[in-house]
């Protein structure tokens, strides 16, 4: 199709696949950010650190205790979620009455502590996490060899994203959550325990980041700074999509991942900045973001 540009179909599909994988991570992470922001009014700067913790918990589980990948997929998000809940109960809770910026600064400080701590213990060289046996190898789809693990990552994160969407938009619990976003006082007056709801929401958002971290562990190196650089891109994704809707976060995340992949094919030098450029353009045309509504 693009042979005249010196681009092979294999290269194109390969990069699109990488883009789809990155996009699934963007989607999962920005979804967690959106849920947390909706109810807590806090931009969770610790999100990247929580993603990194997910990967590390999986790695430590395998290395020290022989816990396999599938158990990690459940246990690591739980662990990260519990840590998140403790942070919310002890620290974040004190800031709800104040300017949102303080929440941002607090979670930034927490991210520095967590990241610095892991760097102190594990260094920055990174650890390898082997792909679980059941997902090694690749499937020939005719036009491309699809590594099984990568297919699994895309499928798993899509399923989790849509589950989260379903819970928030279609269940009773989700209705409470949305009501809490609209008007927490009124919801409290109806007898719903809003502080518990807030705590659980933060734990859920953190667990989602931890889950993404476990998925990422076999693909990227497990290292202490894996979260912070990703998080900045996710922030740009969030600005582009707007924090207004969950489906918006998912679609924006996936779409931008694919665009990034395409840029790697046609103009590799631009691939690291393309999302930021798109952000600038969106800000010029539609400042509230593609799916956002100005508060």
């Amino acid at each position, binding site marked *: 199709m693009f042979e005249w540009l010196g681009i092979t179909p294999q290269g194109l599909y390969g990069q699109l696949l990488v883009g789809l994988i990155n996009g699934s991570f963007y989607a999962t992470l920005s979804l967690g950010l959106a849920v947390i922001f909706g109810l807590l009014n806090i931009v969770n700067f610790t999100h990247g650190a929580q993603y990194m913790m997910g990967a590390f918990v999986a790695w430590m589980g395998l290395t020290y205790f022989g816990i396999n990948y599938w158990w990690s997929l459940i246990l690591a998000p739980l662990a990260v979620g519990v840590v998140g809940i403790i942070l919310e109960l002890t620290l974040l809770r004190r800031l709800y009455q104040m300017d949102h910026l303080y929440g941002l600064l607090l979670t930034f400080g927490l991210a520095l502590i967590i*990241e610095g701590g892991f760097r102190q213990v594990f260094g920055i060289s990174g650890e390898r996490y082997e792909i679980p046996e059941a997902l090694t190898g690749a499937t020939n789809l005719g036009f491309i060899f699809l590594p099984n693990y990568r297919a699994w990552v895309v499928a798993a994160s899509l399923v989790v994203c849509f589950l989260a969407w379903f819970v928030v938009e279609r269940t009773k619990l989700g209705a409470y959550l949305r009501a809490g976003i609209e008007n927490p006082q009124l919801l409290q007056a109806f007898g719903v325990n809003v502080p518990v709801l807030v705590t659980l929401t933060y734990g859920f958002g953190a667990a989602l980041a931890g889950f993404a971290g476990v998925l990422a562990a076999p693909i990227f190196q497990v290292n202490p700074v894996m979260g912070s650089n990703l998080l900045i891109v996710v922030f*740009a994704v969030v*600005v582009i999509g707007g924090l207004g809707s969950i489906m918006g976060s998912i679609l924006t995340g996936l779409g931008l991942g694919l665009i990034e992949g395409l840029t790697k094919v046609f103009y590799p030098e631009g691939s690291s900045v393309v999302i930021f450029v798109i952000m600038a353009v969106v800000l010029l045309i539609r400042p509230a973001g593609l799916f956002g509504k100005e508060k």
Partner: protein
Amino acid sequence: MKLGKTAIGFVILVVAGLVAPFLIYPVFLMKALCFALFACAFNLLLGYTGLLSFGHAAFFGSASYVTGYVITQLGFPVELGILTGTAFAFGLGAVFGSLAIRRQGIYFAMITLALAQMVFFLCLQIKATGGEDGLQGIPRGFLLGFIDLSDTLNMYYFVLGIFLFGFFLIYRVVHSPFGQVLKAIRENEPRAVSLGYDADWHKLLAFILSAGLSGLAGATKSVVFQLASLTDVHWGMSGEVVLMALVGGVGTIFGPVVGALIIVTMENYLAGFGSWVTIIMGAVFVVCVLVFRKGIVGELTALIKR
């Protein structure tokens, strides 16, 4: 009365600046002065306009690269080099500012952070910035053609001059009618707008000024250390300047200077302890946000007033 106290503060600052190099290691002082100017410039935006930028490293770092580049590659004299770097930061500030002020609050922070990360990637990839190595061995040269800046004391007083210039400029801006409008926007933007002030225009001007002075700090830093590196444009630097302003006291004139001194001193002593610097900076962030929101100078002022 208020003016009197500030005047005393100024005199102390100038005298301390003049005497300091005979008591303390001058290179350390120059680093502290550069960061103090950076923090003051940042504080103009956060403290007096209420805008939290998480991307000020972009201005600091890019100015330091531009200055390094024009001095080493194009043979600019040192003062012209610093001016070029500063001018670049002003320009970049105009572009980033006009994008970022379209959103408020946390979005503003995220946008500035993302734009700064873009600058980071550009500095990593472009040939002119030397990639991972950065620009090394930037010559200090001769100020006005005859003052030898490789002499540490000469360099120090040059840096002190630049710092005092930036500091007084910020002071004047904050206490001008323009500065009053900025504070009005910080306190209540819709009201400022309803009184007929163009909030966006004022925010943009404050942003540009803050970016340009951050650039001045970065440009000076690259001449002092003869080095422009990726550290200067990294998001960690943006976080550091937030911390300096926070520790010293957001929205106070002298706070950022105090904050910068403390953080630079801390880094100096902890330099050999690896990641502990990051951990402690994070802890200071948490403590400041939870119990110490006014910062050192802010708390002191509150104490005196009581």
